[in-house]
């Protein structure tokens, strides 16, 4: 088991102004970054099969949003879902084991990168279908309301998902039923290769909220504090019955869409520009400059997270391979 310090919301103010919250958030940012770099490396060395979608460059969205959530709150995630999973508190070993096709993986090797769910931390699952998780989030929120619980559900999705019918139907349902759900769009400018400048006429995705009578807000998705601030407001509103919010987080993936991407649709200049807006670097600098963490503390944290990822790889590698013998009996939950 390899876990990181759980994220939490400071009672007041921003994350970077609170030492413990800043430390936990930096751990999250680094864990996502190092986990995915490790995965990228394993893939390049032929030690991991299939495909995967890396969120390197987008770490601040999952971190800022999940810092505003309780452990009992739920999320639905996407094909690019490692960041959400880690930020919500998943065990890095079980994640890595899944990617390495092991029996001890979150899905016992049946799902892989695109289907990791973690009941323990309220992660209702990544999803291989663009926008597939959005109506599911609305339904989980409906259940919270009907069960009289005050949990909130966050649905993560990309810019491409907002052109799907499922997005429209789910936001409308959530709006008319005032559901405790927050819709978080990670706008990384491309649905696979297709630029948002060509896939939609609206300038901001958050404008789409008006179509459902919902508040919509656009935020710098590479700034943990900014993301946290809008997420906290939306989550608090949802928790007290104020209904859903659409949050658009402007961000960028440094890597390609998936492992087959040759980056033919983006310029090197654009990628380099966004690397100067690296969410991990920005946050590190901020917490050091504000004096919440010393450079030494940041270095210790970095080492700690590197060790956790290394441990995850070690433990996962030693685990047994996933077992075909149980496949047929696993299609249905057995009737008790």
């Amino acid at each position, binding site marked *: 088991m390899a876990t990181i310090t759980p994220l939490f919301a400071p009672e007041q103010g921003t994350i970077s102004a609170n030492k413990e919250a800043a430390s936990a958030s930096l751990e999250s940012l680094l864990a996502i970054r190092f986990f995915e770099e490790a995965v990228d490396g394993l893939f390049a060395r032929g030690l991991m099969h299939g495909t995967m979608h890396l969120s390197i460059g987008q770490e601040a969205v999952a971190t800022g949003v999940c810092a505003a959530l309780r452990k009992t709150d739920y999320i639905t995630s996407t094909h690019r879902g490692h960041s959400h999973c880690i930020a919500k508190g998943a065990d890095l070993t079980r994640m890595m084991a899944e990617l390495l096709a092991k029996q001890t*993986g979150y899905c016992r090797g*049946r799902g892989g990168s695109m289907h990791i*769910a973690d009941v323990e931390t309220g992660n209702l699952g990544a999803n291989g279908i663009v926008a*597939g998780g959005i109506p*599911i989030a*609305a*339904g989980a929120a409906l259940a919270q309301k009907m069960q009289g619980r005050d949990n909130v559900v966050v649905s993560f999705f990309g810019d491409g998902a907002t052109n799907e019918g*499922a997005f429209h139907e*789910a936001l409308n349902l959530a709006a008319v039923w005032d559901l405790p759900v927050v819709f978080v769009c990670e706008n990384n400018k491309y649905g696979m290769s297709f630029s948002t400048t060509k896939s939609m006429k609206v300038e901001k995705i958050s404008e789409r909220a008006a179509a459902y009578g919902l508040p919509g807000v656009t935020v710098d998705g590479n700034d943990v504090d900014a993301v946290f601030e809008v997420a906290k407001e939306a989550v608090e509103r949802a928790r007290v019955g104020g209904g859903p919010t659409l949050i658009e987080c402007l961000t960028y993936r440094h890597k390609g869409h998936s492992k087959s991407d040759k980056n033919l649709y983006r310029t090197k200049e654009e990628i380099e520009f966004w690397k100067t807006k690296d969410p991990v670097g920005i946050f590190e600098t901020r917490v050091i400059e504000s004096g919440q963490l010393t450079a030494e503390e940041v270095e210790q944290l970095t080492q700690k997270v590197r060790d956790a990822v290394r441990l995850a790889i070690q433990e996962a590698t030693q685990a047994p391979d996933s077992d075909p013998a149980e496949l047929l009996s696993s299609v249905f939950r057995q009737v008790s």
Partner: protein
Amino acid sequence: MTERIITYAEAIREAIGQAMEADESVFMLGEDIGVYGGAFGVSGDLYHRFGEERVRDTPISELGIVGAAVGAALVGMKPIVEIQFSDFTAQAMDQIVNQAAKIHFMLGGELSVPMVLRAPSGSGTGAAAQHSQSLESWFAHVPGLKVVLPSSPADAKGLLLSALDDPNPVIVLEHKLLYKTSGHVPEEMYRTPIGVSNVVRNGTDLTIVATGVMVSRSVEAAEQLASAGIEACVIDVRTLSPLDMDPINASIAETGRLMLVQEAPKHVGFMAEVAARVSEGPAIYSLTEPVLRLCGMDVPIPYAPQLEKSVVPQLDDIVEGAKNLVRGV
């Protein structure tokens, strides 16, 4: 004691009402199921008995509705989705096929989707091609879905209650011509097991396997055949997934003749699976005649009443088919 006779629609409503009384997590959602009472009157007074929270009218949003049911089911609710016409499941296929059916398996087994999706199926109402299909083989082809076609009021209630007990997604395709048909239905909460075919009528001359509205049609045909000296065994498959072949194989051993009757188009239809299963096992050696499939024509359901009737098996077709099979014509 006289048998209590109620309609198929009333039997479904009774099952839902009893389930909602017994279990607070059961709720209904769908289009016009509230004050309107459902397009086919199935939900009826449930809205007044249980209120708008638990008999939840939705926008016309099939994908959203099913997705919401999946999400609610994942966190402890037992939703009953009503899709107004089974044809409209096409709007919701991602949530049915890619999400509900796969979540338990794909996500490693910790989560499951105890959702019941009910939808009126079949032709015979003059509603034409987009409101009359029999799509059961779509669902039966997807691992992870259970598929149920109740053919009588008693099974409509018993299978629905079993579906609600099931921790997996169950698709219940009700036939719209059956909603107003009546039969004996016990008042208590009984369960008709999913995965058990039903021998509706015994006979030793031929085996008729049918689904949906074709079951009662086949029984009626069997009665006519009896007066002509032919005794047909009629078996209602009742649950397509999982499929119980045992009574079918056992009957073929006695009759040596097999007629398969479905309303859905023939090509790649469900009865092709039944025929294939027979051919894969020892039952094939009992057959003295080739298998006869009596199916819907491979055309969209047309509007005009004479056209509509001509594309799905009618009573006379079943009688004639059976006679030909028995006489070896």
